[in-house]
């Protein structure tokens, strides 16, 4: 799965010069658009949208109804609203993630946008864990190393997922047992060793050292935070 091309949709007629300037200064790529089926929409969809309700309320809400059709909340939306329009937001909470009163303060808009995009990145990352050549798709439960699918049992998958989500951190066997197995498993703490050994075998020689043994402590996935 390719990383999403980062392109913000700006729905405003006309685009306030202050908005264009703020986005450019903050380093966002953006395009104006008027509708969901707009040909300018990037292949991976918009990475976010800024909708200026203050300028064109009707066009703005129409655009958002299209974006949020079918309950899709994948595209983060920031509204620009005039003070007199706040009542319009009532019952429309599902159409946007945050708003900013206009005329806006450029630093505030930038901060809100940054916050929104970070939250969005995390949301998308949560479905895909990547570390080096290892990819775990949390939605389909599939894992691959250098593009080669890994066949694992459920617990092997869960252990790898947990480790890959916490790279660089050292876990004791007991911690892994309680965090990954989550219940009193009769395999005991040594179960962790057994599963690590199996995972290494399945990752293959080349990648076996992704899971490192930390002597008399436990295991660490990937490089230590203190190495460089």
């Amino acid at each position, binding site marked *: 799965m390719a990383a999403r091309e980062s392109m913000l949709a700006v729905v405003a007629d006309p685009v306030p010069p202050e908005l264009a300037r703020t986005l450019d200064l903050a380093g966002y790529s953006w395009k104006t658009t008027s509708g969901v089926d707009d040909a300018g929409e990037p292949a991976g969809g918009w990475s976010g949208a800024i909708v200026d309700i203050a300028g064109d309320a009707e066009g703005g809400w129409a655009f958002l109804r299209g974006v949020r059709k079918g309950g899709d909340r994948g595209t983060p939306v920031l509204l620009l609203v005039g003070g007199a329009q706040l009542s319009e937001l009532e019952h429309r909470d599902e159409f946007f993630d945050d708003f900013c009163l206009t005329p806006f303060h450029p630093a505030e808009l930038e901060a809100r946008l940054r916050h929104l995009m970070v939250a969005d990145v995390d949301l998308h990352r949560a479905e895909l864990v990547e570390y080096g050549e290892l990819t775990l798709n949390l939605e389909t439960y599939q894992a691959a190393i250098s593009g080669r699918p890994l*066949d694992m049992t459920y617990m092997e998958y869960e252990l790898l997922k947990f480790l890959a989500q916490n790279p660089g951190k050292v876990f004791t066997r007991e911690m892994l047992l309680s965090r990954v197995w989550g219940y009193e498993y*009769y395999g005991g703490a040594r179960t962790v060793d057994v599963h690590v050994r199996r995972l290494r075998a399945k990752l293959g020689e080349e990648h076996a050292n992704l899971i490192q043994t930390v002597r008399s402590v436990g295991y660490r996935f990937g490089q230590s935070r203190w190495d460089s």
Partner: protein
Amino acid sequence: MLDSQRNYVLRSVEERGVRLVRLWFTDVLGTLKSLAISPAELENALEDGMTFDGSSIDGFSRVQEADVLAMPDADTFELLPWGDPKVPEARIFCDIHHLDGTPFEGDPRQVLRRHVQEAHDEGLTFYVAPDAEFFYFEPLVPGQPPVPIDHGGYFDLTTSDVTGELRKTTIRTLEALGIPVEYSFHEDAPGQQEIDLRHTDALTMADSMMTFRLAVREVASHHDVHATFMPKPLEGVQGSGMHVHLSLFRGDDNAFHDADDAYHLSPTAKAFMAGMLHHAAEITAVTNQTVNSYKRLVPGFEAPVHISWARNNRSGLIRVPIPKRNNPMATRIEYRSPDPACNPYLAFSLMLAAGMRGIREGYELPDEADANLFEIGDDVLTKLGIRQLPQSLNDALIVMENSTLVREALGEHIFEWFLRNKRSEWRAYKTQVTPFERDRYLGTL
């Protein structure tokens, strides 16, 4: 937990395009059985199990009700690394239940599950690492003696090297199935191999042994070679054993280890060993369940004959290996009589039951027998109180029949069925007139 396990299995089947799911279980004699279902049936199987008629499965027959339920254990889901990669197959081990959902007494996996759980209730985890030996033969010709595929010996790096290639492919297959291999090498006899598996908890290992035997045969047959776990396929050379390394852990600590003891054995380890020695004869019919098993347990071939223990004496029944670099985690005992033709679920169950009896009742460990017992006369051994293992399947069955330990450990259903089945095997054997007898008697008597 269960739901996400199920989802994992269902999604994997979907994503990997699995065409056939094999539901595996084991009969009382240790034969792997498989019930194949289509992926469309899988969700239903994971939820409610699959009903089948158990009456023709060895040891599953019951008087009133023949139907039983195979409940897949979702955590054992694995893609099978052999066969056509375009039509992948997967396997899941099953527990067998009555239709009302209670565990079925005839299911060996449930027997082991019960023992492992009992040990767990006392805070102990039972770890097992078998060293399995087997032979590679040229394709069998009916009526002809088997021909080993090579004439290598112990640790030989044979160059020809079908054997090496076979072992390598087998190990790759095992690792792909999540069965880590610690060592593999050419054993003493021509065509004989040994593969040592890395320890896991006993239930996982019993599943692994079932998979292991299939994988070894499967890989061999792809190369037009016959692999066999028959305990003594050839006269005059050593047979195939399955030495089992055993240890008990309490959490992260090895309950068998005591740094202050001369042999680094804890009182728990000693009581466990005492239990195994005390009940060794009783459990032998299960650890060595064929007529042929007893042809291996004879003097002179590195197989144990006497019920004894020692630190580094391979003629004893229990050996205490010296751990590498004195690693406390590696303190363990090695039980040397079982052969790889046993039912691993039942064999591990009885080893654990015998050892735990020793711990619970505080058995005293007899003295170490560090001399080569093969060179000591029987009268001396008797004076030392060293008994022999049963000499035949019949002997073993007689001892087993009187064992309350084995009866309790296996449960009435399997205990009775096993004795009945094995007695009939013995009777069939007893009526044979062998070439040995004709050679020896026909001319002179």
